[in-house]
């Protein structure tokens, strides 16, 4: 089964780049997951200042350019894992967060884990 993990944090944490040591550690963890055959895809997102929102509200479509200063947390990166259980992807995500704990003092955020609806070859 496939899961998408989205890393969310307040954008104030994204004002500056993450510590170099964290980026390296995340790279190593990604390599471990790749070598374990479970990492399908991963990527980081630029700050919301480079993005936009297209909103439909009360029958009206509006486009708002970033940054989204009012947003409490924004997605900063994602990874798609192919694993045997939800617990397994939780374990990888815990390791990911442990790296933040170790390399980025005071960082607060979360990894939201969502199962992908269609993941051929599927086991439904």
């Amino acid at each position: 089964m496939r899961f998408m993990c989205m890393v969310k944090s307040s954008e104030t944490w994204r004002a500056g780049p993450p510590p170099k040591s964290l980026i390296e550690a995340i790279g190593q963890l990604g390599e471990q997951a790749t070598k374990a055959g479970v990492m399908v895809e991963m990527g980081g997102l630029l700050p919301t200042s480079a993005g936009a929102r297209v909103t439909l509200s009360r029958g009206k479509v509006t486009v708002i350019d970033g940054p989204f200063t009012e947003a409490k947390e924004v997605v900063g990166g994602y990874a798609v894992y192919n694993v045997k259980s939800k617990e397994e992807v939780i374990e990888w995500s815990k390791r990911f967060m442990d790296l933040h704990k170790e390399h980025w003092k005071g960082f607060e955020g979360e990894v939201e884990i969502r199962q992908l609806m269609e993941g051929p070859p599927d086991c439904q």
Partner: protein
Amino acid sequence: MTAADIHRTIDAVFRIEQAKLIAGLARILRDVGLAEELAQDALVAALERWPESGVPENPGAWLMATAKHRAIDRLRHGKLVERKHEELGREAEALEQTVPDLDAALDDDIGDDLLRLVFTACHPVLSTEARAALTLRLIGGLTTDEIARAFLAPEPTIAQRIVRAKRTLAEKQVRFEVPRASEREARLSSVLEVIYLIFNEGYAATAGDDWMRPQLCEEALRLGRILAELAATEPEIHGLVALMELQASRFGARTGASGEPVLLLDQDRARWDQLLIRRGLKALERAETLSGVPGPYVLQASIAACHARARTSEETDWVRIAALYAVLAQLMPSPVVELNRAVALAMAFGAQAGLELVDTLMTEPLLANYHLLPSVRGDLLHKLGRFEEARAEFERAAALTRNGRERKLLLDRAAACTRA
């Protein structure tokens, strides 16, 4: 966390760590069976202790340290010393010295150990079935019960198969190593064969079966992806991974709403999994940059890639597919490959070109009961307007197939020939 939560967490941790654990232990002990036993011991210890103590900060290192302690206990109790004398005595000392060094226990070199483990589990002294079961057990981390369900075999049969395989490895004194250059190619193809067998076992599974069977595809993909990182310079590994990713990309499109099989050219390409296609094409690219004459997996992946790249079935590059089949047929002569080549020739250059090749296969004993031969021939004859001959072929194919839906389809086509 409830006890059940902890157990699920332990399962997950173990799945991530088990292969590395077994591989590391097997290097020290030079005994794969014993290494697996000790890894299991460490799991039992975790199940006993973690519910109370909580999951340790670095669970992988904890498991490795525990397993090593057990290994030392076992060595001290002399069970092994009898068997391996001084050599293991020295190992015991060395082992003891390494125990406090937890970081080193999980160092990067573990990759080499894992590769050794793959080559050992897929050693040619074992039957293909034994290799598959042992690989799923040791590297895939599947339980005996899961493997049994996946292969539709009783659990005791699989358990026996694994026990015997481990015993054979010990008796034949199979070395825990990556084979040297002279035998590397043969040994590698033995590994690839096992992974592709596991994949096909899952791919052939029909809907409604135990979910463990399709799970085999995922396991094979995972094994392939692992191997592709461990032995990154081998083009055929990337070829196999590409082939599996590309075939798996069509998983969601190959059955219709009521479970009937949908042929490749009739599939809704919007349902192909683009992520897997992207991964497959990338793996194929990796294989191609490694130079050398393309092997059978790279060629088959190249053929699959021709389909994956075509946005509609009409855009398929049949000339290239026919050429690839011609190279494949030279590399591994097989009437089934020839039949596929005939189909590609017909698509590229017209039905007559395909029919000429099919006609040369009519006396091939290996295809005597293969329903696709008359089915393909009937299709080509139909395209050429030779309806009476086509009808006979469709009827022959219908009599040979064991699939009810396919039989109906073939009989319908035969009936259509009569009306034509």
